[in-house]
Structure formats: C-alpha cells, structure tokens
C-alpha cells in the first residue's frame, strides 16, 4: 500500500485518519470500514473503487458527510466532521459538497431551473440571485436552452447534466459522484466523464465512486477498497489519451 502525496502544495480538503464504521444488522455486527486513512487535496481527481461489500458506499457516505464514523477522525477543510450533529452536517453538505447520483435524483415535477435552485434555497439565497446562479450553472453544463424543461422532457444525459449543474451551483469544495454513468449508455457516459474532466481542469476537486475500471481510468488517482480497508492508492501513470482529447475538445467549446 502506497500513500500518495499528490499536489503537495495545495491545501487538504479531506483528512481522514483511521476511521471505522460498524452496522448492526439483526444480530450481526457488520464492519463496513475497518480503519481507513485518506487525504484528498484541492483539485484532485480521485476514483474510489472496489467490489460490492468492500465498504465503498460507506466510505462515500462518510466523504459526503451523510454519515459519521464509529471511530477515527475526519476533518473537512479543517473542521472536525466526526462530532457534528445532523443539522451541522446538513450545512457542510449544502456549502461544501456537490452530489451527483447514479439515478440523478431530480425532483420529477420541477423544472431544471427549480432543481438547480434547490441547494441555493437551503442556503437561503434571495430568489433573484438564485435564478441567476442556477441559470449560469445550467448554461455551464450546456443546458442553457433547457431551463424550463422537466426531467421527463430530458434525455438521461441531460438529466445527469442538470444534476451536475445542481452540484456545482453552490461552488462546493468537492464534487462527489456515485456511479454517475451507471444509468447511461456508454456514449453518453463518456460525455459525462468529459464534463467531469473539464470541471477538474477548471480547478474543481472531483471524487468519483465506481466499480467500473473504464470510468475510474479518467481519474488521476485511484483508491481501491477491499473488505473495509484501502487495498491500494495510486496515481494514474498518465492521463488516458482518449479522455484528454475529449477534455480538450469540451474545453474548446
């Protein structure tokens, strides 16, 4: 196991030290995480990989501040997350984390604009500024002409773009994507991954949780989990040429 020191000049966003997580399922205690240590700096592009049951989802819940560890230390931008209560975690999620889900998780009866405005509503932003920022975020992902469409009027790829716009709209510290291409065909999947690539190029911190090596290949660093521990943590030797080409193309747009 090699600890990666990557972009060592940039500040730490996530600093996890020896966290564990246990669940009680019936009479059994499940050790989902058995001591994970992980540091993620600003503007990293990281893939978290592992087979099902490896603790991948649990780690994602921890990283996304949806859950707190049973033991260990978790600091997010220097703030101790492990001891926060539900509402403090909600504030961290709202301000610092942009979620992208496999199933998009858009509100079905709301327009793209309204969906993207949601995190801003929870941040208490005024309606005018909210609309302006949501419009900008949708334009940034190439959906400037789909503001008033509802999810059922959009293709899968467009839906995921709305979700990415929603993740970006509050300028979070990390973008946390859980199997973001799992419900998309491979061509659309590649487009979405290209979008992540360009977000990374613009300076965002991107974490993609996936079990697909093809998807993980786009990242600059990949962390493999197995049985609740980090099995390997390595930098990609070189950016995959295909991904770079798409990225350059999409940046040029």
């Amino acid at each position, binding site marked *: 196991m090699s600890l990666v020191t990557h972009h060592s000049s940039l500040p730490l966003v996530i600093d996890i030290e020896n966290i564990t997580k246990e669940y009680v399922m019936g009479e059994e205690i499940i050790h989902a995480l058995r001591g994970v240590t992980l540091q993620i700096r600003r503007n990293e592009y990281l893939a978290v990989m592992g087979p099902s049951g490896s603790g991948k989802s649990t780690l994602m*819940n921890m990283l*996304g501040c*949806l*859950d707190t560890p049973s033991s260990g230390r978790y600091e997010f931008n220097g703030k101790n997350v492990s001891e926060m209560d*539900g*509402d403090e975690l*909600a*504030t961290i*999620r*709202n*301000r610092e984390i942009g*979620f992208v*889900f496999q199933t998009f*998780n858009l*509100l079905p*009866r*709301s327009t793209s604009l309204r969906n993207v405005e*949601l*995190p801003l*509503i*929870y*941040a*208490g932003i005024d309606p005018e500024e909210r609309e302006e920022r949501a419009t900008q975020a949708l334009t940034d992902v190439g959906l400037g002409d789909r503001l008033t469409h509802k999810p059922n009027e959009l293709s899968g790829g467009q839906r995921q773009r709305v979700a990415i716009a*929603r993740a970006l709209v*509050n300028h979070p510290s990390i973008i946390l994507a859980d199997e973001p291409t799992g419900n998309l065909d491979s061509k659309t999947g590649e487009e979405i991954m290209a979008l992540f690539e360009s977000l990374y190029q613009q300076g965002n911190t991107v974490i993609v949780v996936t079990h697909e090596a093809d998807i993980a290949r786009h990242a600059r660093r990949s962390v493999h989990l197995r049985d609740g521990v980090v099995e390997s943590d390595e930098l990609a030797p070189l950016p995959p040429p295909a991904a770079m080409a798409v990225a350059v193309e999409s940046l040029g747009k």
Partner: protein
Amino acid sequence: MKRFLYELTESWKIAAAQMVANKTRSMLTALGVIIGIVAVTLMGTAINGISTGFDKSMAVIGDDVLYISQRPWTRMNDWWNYRDRKKIRTEYADKINHAIAATPNSNLMIAVPTMSLLRSVKAGDNSVDGVFILGTTTDYTLISTLDCSEGRFFNELESRGGAEVCVVGYDVADAAFAGRSALDKKVLINGHSFKVIGTLSRQGTFLGLFSLDSIVVIPLPAFKKYFSAKSEADVRVKVRDKTHMADAVDELTGIMRRLRSLPPEKKDDFSINEQQAFKSTLDAVKTTIAIAGLFITGLSLFVGAIGIMNITFVSVKERTKEIGTRKALGARRRTILLQFLIESTALCLVGGLIGLTFAYLMCFGMAAAFPSFPIRFSFGLVIASMIVSVLTGLVSGIAPAWSASRLDPVTALRYE
C-alpha cells in the same frame, strides 16, 4: 425570523405544487375537513341565529316588564310545589297601582292585569284555530310594544264597561278576512260576537316557532263574562328603569306580600317573572346545543384530521428518496419538518375554504327556504373556522412531518 419566513414561502410553493400534482388525492383527503368545517359553521350559524331570534322575540315581549304569576316560568320540573298557591287575581293590579302612587321614587310605573286562553275565532265561513285570546285593560298599550296598523285600541270606557270590541293580530285579520279590511266586521270567539275596532301591526314569530300575530285582545270584563272568570291571571308591571331591575323586583315583592298579608316567616306564595329568567334558561339550552354540536363537529374534524395524517404519512413514504436528496443537498431537519407541516396545513386550509363556501351557500339556501328562521353567517365564524382548519392541519401533520425530518439521509437515499 427572516430565514423562517424564507423557508415558509418556499414550503408554501412546494405544498401548492404537491396539491396541484395530486389533485384527486388532495380533494378526497380534504373532504373530511370540508365536512368538518361545514358542520362547525352550520352549528355556529344555528346558535347565532337562535340567539338573534331570541333577542328579537324578547324585544317584542318587552324587557322592562315584570310578570306576577302563580308559578315561575323557568321551573317546569317541580310544578306540584306551586299548584296549591292562591291564584293571582286581576284586582291586584289596581291595588299595586295605588301602592306605586303612594311610594315616592317608586321603581315601578304601572300594573296591568291580563287573562288569556286559546280559542278558535270565526268570521263568516273562515275559522282560525288556536288563537291567543288576551283579556286586558286599555293600559295594556302602556306596557307593550303593540300598536295598531289600522283602527285603534279600545279606550278606557270600553275597557271598564267590557264592551264587545276586539283588536285582532295580523295573522287573524289575514286568515279571517283574506286581505280585506277587518275594521267594523264581526268575529265570533267561542260563539260570542265581537266587533273589530283595530288591527295590530305585524310582530313576527317567536324564535320562528309560533306566531306572535295569532292574537285577539278584548276588554277584561268581557273576557271574564264570556270565558272563565276563574282562569289564571297575570299582572304585568312595567318598571321605570330597567337598569334597576333587582330593586323593582324587591319593591314589587314587598307590595305583593302586603297584599297577601304574608307574615315575615312565610315564603312568597307568588312568582315574579322577568324575561331575563327566560334568557338564562335559553342560555342553558344554547350551551347544551353548543357542547353537543362541538362534540359532533369535533368528531367529524377528528376523522378529517386522521385522513390528512394518513395521506401525509403516505406522502412521506412515497417521497422518502426525495427527502434523502433534499437532505443531501443541505435541507435541515427543521426545513423538512416545516415542508410537510405546511403541506398538511395547506390541505386543511383549502378544505376549510371549500367547506366555508359550502356552508355559506347552504345558509343562503336555508334563509331563502325558511325566511322566518333567523340565520346569521358571521365574520367571526369565518375566522374561527380558518383557525380550526390551520390547527387541524398542524395537529395531523406533526407526526408524519416529524418522522420525515428524522429520516437518516443514507437510508432515505437508498430507498426505492
């Protein structure tokens, strides 16, 4: 505070969107509240109406008149205690008037004797049954609100002499003479002929129950002569100032005790009645109606509230994943709680408004169908039912909203 208003506005928008999205379901759920509010409003209107009608009817009787009778008006369940009392005699009126004249600064003005019976009245082929035949003196005009729309009341001479003249109420004149003037016509009361010298102006009904216009007034001596001289009599006494009612009652009690020569240790063997006593009896009836009504309407609102609670629970369950997403995006517990509370409250409020509209239309219809029954739809009731709607919404929404706010985001996101 500003933040709270902000969240409130956003929650209202979500609630409105939810209702529009689930129109049928929302309407069916709100039905319980609609029925509840209709019941509450109609009950309130009925109580209001009875109260107003009573006040109107009381004004006709006169609230500044005391009635000396053999028994109290308000005690129906122990009449045997009063059965053996001496009868009230019409002669007391004169004696009371002497006593009033002899008292400086008396609280009383004038006493007038009355006797009454129910008889049928005939004019030609027309017959009116159950007419209230009132025998009294010309002084009756001084203590009542009666006035003649046509003709005149009988004078002192006719009154003392027991002339065979009468003054008829609106209903009697209308039924016996069918629109033609009753003046100078003859009517037969119990087979005895009386000449009509006046028609009373219309009084309306007592609480919509019976007419105050089905009346014939005749001179007291004629009443005694042709009907029973032994039938029960009352003496009505008008007080000078109705704000000193208690003093007037005391004074009259004193006069009556002297008339009856009662020694101090004996109890009164007569009753002095006033309409206030009536009012307190009615208040008791009103309270009973209100309690029974409140129970029934409370029950229907309760059923409505359970419906709302049920549908809110269903809504929370259905939208578990949405709640998870909202939480992931930064919704706090309070925000989720507020959202579902507002949803149930909005549902109740819409139900309440629809219920009010129905109730208003029903009152309108009832007022048109039964013009004699007093119905009043008051602004206070509108406010009250709105408050009741909101409270129902809050009470029925709190449990589901609480459970939604406590959902664990990880579990909620994984819910399919």
